[in-house]
C-alpha cells in the first residue's frame, strides 16, 4: 500500500458532524504532548514518536516515501 496522503484521522466509535474535527482532535493531542517541555525534551519526544509510529507502519517502502517527502524542501 502506498503512503496515504489523504486526511485519515478518526477515533473508533466517534461520530463526526464537521470534517475538520478529527484532524483538530489529533493536533491538539500532539501539541498537548509537548506542553511544559523544554525544546530538548520535545525533540526527544518527537524522535520517540517517529520510532513508535514507524514500527506501527512497518512497511519500509512506505516509510522511505514518508522520509523522502519530509526531507524535501528543507
Amino acid at each position, binding site marked *: 500500500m502506498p503512503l*496515504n*496522503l*489523504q*486526511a*485519515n*484521522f478518526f477515533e473508533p466509535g466517534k461520530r463526526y*458532524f*464537521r*470534517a*475538520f474535527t478529527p*484532524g*483538530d482532535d*489529533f*493536533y*491538539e493531542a*500532539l*501539541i498537548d504532548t*509537548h506542553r511544559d*517541555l523544554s*525544546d530538548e525534551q*520535545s*525533540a526527544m519526544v*518527537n524522535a520517540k514518536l517517529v520510532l513508535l509510529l514507524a514500527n506501527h507502519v512497518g512497511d519500509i517502502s512506505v516509510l522511505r516515501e514518508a522520509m523522502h*517527502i519530509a526531507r524535501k*524542501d528543507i
Partner: protein
Amino acid sequence: MLSTYQYPKFDVVRAPEFSGGQTKRYPVVVVGAGPVGLAAAIELAQSGVPVLLLDDDDTVSVGSRGVCYAKRTLEVLDRLGLGDVCMDKGVSWNVGRTFFREQEVYNFDLLPQPDHKRPGMINLQQYYLEEFEVKRAQELPNLDLRFKNKVVSVTPQGDGATLQVETPDGIYAMETDWLVVADGARSGIRRMMNLDIEGKIFKDRFLIADVVMKADFPHERWFWFDPPFHPGQSVLLHRQADNVYRIDFQLGWDADPEEEKKPEKVIPRIKAMLGDEREFDLEWVSVYTFQCRRMNAFTHGHVLFVGDAAHQVSPFGARGANSGIQDTDNLCWKLKLVVEGKAPPELLNTYSEERVFAAEENLLNSTRSTDFITPKSKTSLTFRNAVLSLARNHAFARALVNSGRLSVPSFLTESRLNTPDDGPFSGDMVPGAPMDDAPMRFAGQDVWLLDQLGRRFCLLVYVNAPASLAANTLAQFKALASSAADGAAALALDVLLVSPAKTAATELKLLQDHTDRFAERYDAQDGTVYLIRPDQHVAARWRAFDAVKVQAALARATCNLH
C-alpha cells in the same frame, strides 16, 4: 474618521415611571441593545411576549466590531424579518484562502453543498446589523426600547428581579418576572450579582483597522501566516459593505496598544501590505486582546444570561456574535412557553445546558485555532510550519491548517429534550441536529424549507402520495394542529406534508420536494416523520406516524413529561 457611515442618534424618551404611580412590573426585561439583546427582544415581541429593552447608550456599536455573520445566523435573522436587509447590505462569501509566506497553501468552501438559501457567511459591519435591528424593534408594538437607561442595581428575587435604572431624567425602579442579560463581555449585571466567569486571557495583541479603498479583491476571506509584509505574525483581510476592508494584524504581547493605534504607526503597516500606490482612508482602529471563558450556568433563577455576558471566545472563527444570536434563538421559544404557563421553568435550565454545550464547542474550536495561529512554544511553531509546508502538496496536511474554524451551529445530540431514534436512519439530521435547508415548491412558487416553518413545533411528514392519506390519519394531524384543551400541556403543532409528488391542494400545507434534496438530506421515505423545535433543531423522528409517540416527544421537548 468614519466617512462611510453616519451614526444614528436615537431619541431618548422619558420613562413612564416618572409620571408617578406604583412600581411597574414587566413580564420580560432585556438589558443591552447590542446585536444579541436586540435579537432576543425582537423574537420575544413578535412571538407575542411583551418586552422592555434597556440600553445605556443612544447609538449603535462604534467601529465594525462583529463582522462575520454565518449561515445559521442569517436563518435566524430571516425569522426576525432581517435576513434580506442584511444580505442586501452585506458581502456574501463562501471561500477562504490561506497563505503561508508568499504562497497560497489551502482554501476552503464553507458551503460545498448546493441548494441552500443562505451563503456560508456574510460580512457586515456590526453597526449596520444593530441599526437594522433597532428599526425592526421599533416597528413592534409590544417592544418598548429605552435608550440611555442604564441598570445600576439588580436584586434577584425568587420569582423575578427588581432593578434600579439611571436615566437623564433621574433614577427609577422597576420589577420584572424574567430578566434577560445581554450587556456584553464586561457585563455589569453579572458583576452586580457576583457571578463568576472563568477561563483564560491569551497573551497576544491584535490591531484591527477599517480601511476604505477602491479595490477589486474577490469576496473571500484571506489569511496569511508569516507574510513578507508582516513577518513572523498573522494577518486577516475581510471585505465589508461600502468598500470598507477589515484588516487584522497580529502584534504580539509586547506591543504598546496606545502607540500601535496611532495613524503614523498603522498607515505604514497597511502600505506594506497593499503597496505604496494604493489609495485608502483609515476609518477606525482598535487594539484588542481576548479571553476565552464562560459562566458555569447561563440560567440563574429568573435571570438568564446570553451572548458575551455569558461566554467569550477568541475572534478566530466568528463565534462571538453568531453564538450569541443562537443563544437567543434557543432561549426565546422556551421563555415564551414558560411565560405563557405551557412549560415549567425547568425548561429554562435546558437553555443553559444546551448553550453551555455549544459554548464549550465554540471555546474548543476557537482555542484550537488560536493555538495554531499563535504557537506558544518553539515546538508548536515547528509543527505549525511543517503543516503549512506540507499543505501545499498533500491533502492530509491541508485538513490540519487551522486559520479559524468558522461558526457553525452545534448538534445538540446530548440534549435531554431529544427523543432517541427507535429505528435506523442515515445522514446527519439526528435528534438535536440543526436543520438543513432544502429548496421546495409551495402552491407553484419556489420556496425554502426553513422559511416555511413557523414559530411553533412542527411535524414534517414525508408522503409519496398525499392524496391517498387515510382519513383517520388526516384527522389525527388536524387534531395535533389544533390546540388541545387539556391545560398546561396544550401545545399546538404545525403539520406540514412534504412530498416528491406534485399534488393538488390537500387540507394540510404541502411542500413539494421537487429536487429530492429533502429526501436525501433527511433520509426520508414514505411515512417518515420529523418533529422540529421552534428553533429549527430536530427533536425526534420516526419511520411511521404515531400520534402517541409524537405527543410524548413533544412533552419531552418541553419538559412536560411526567
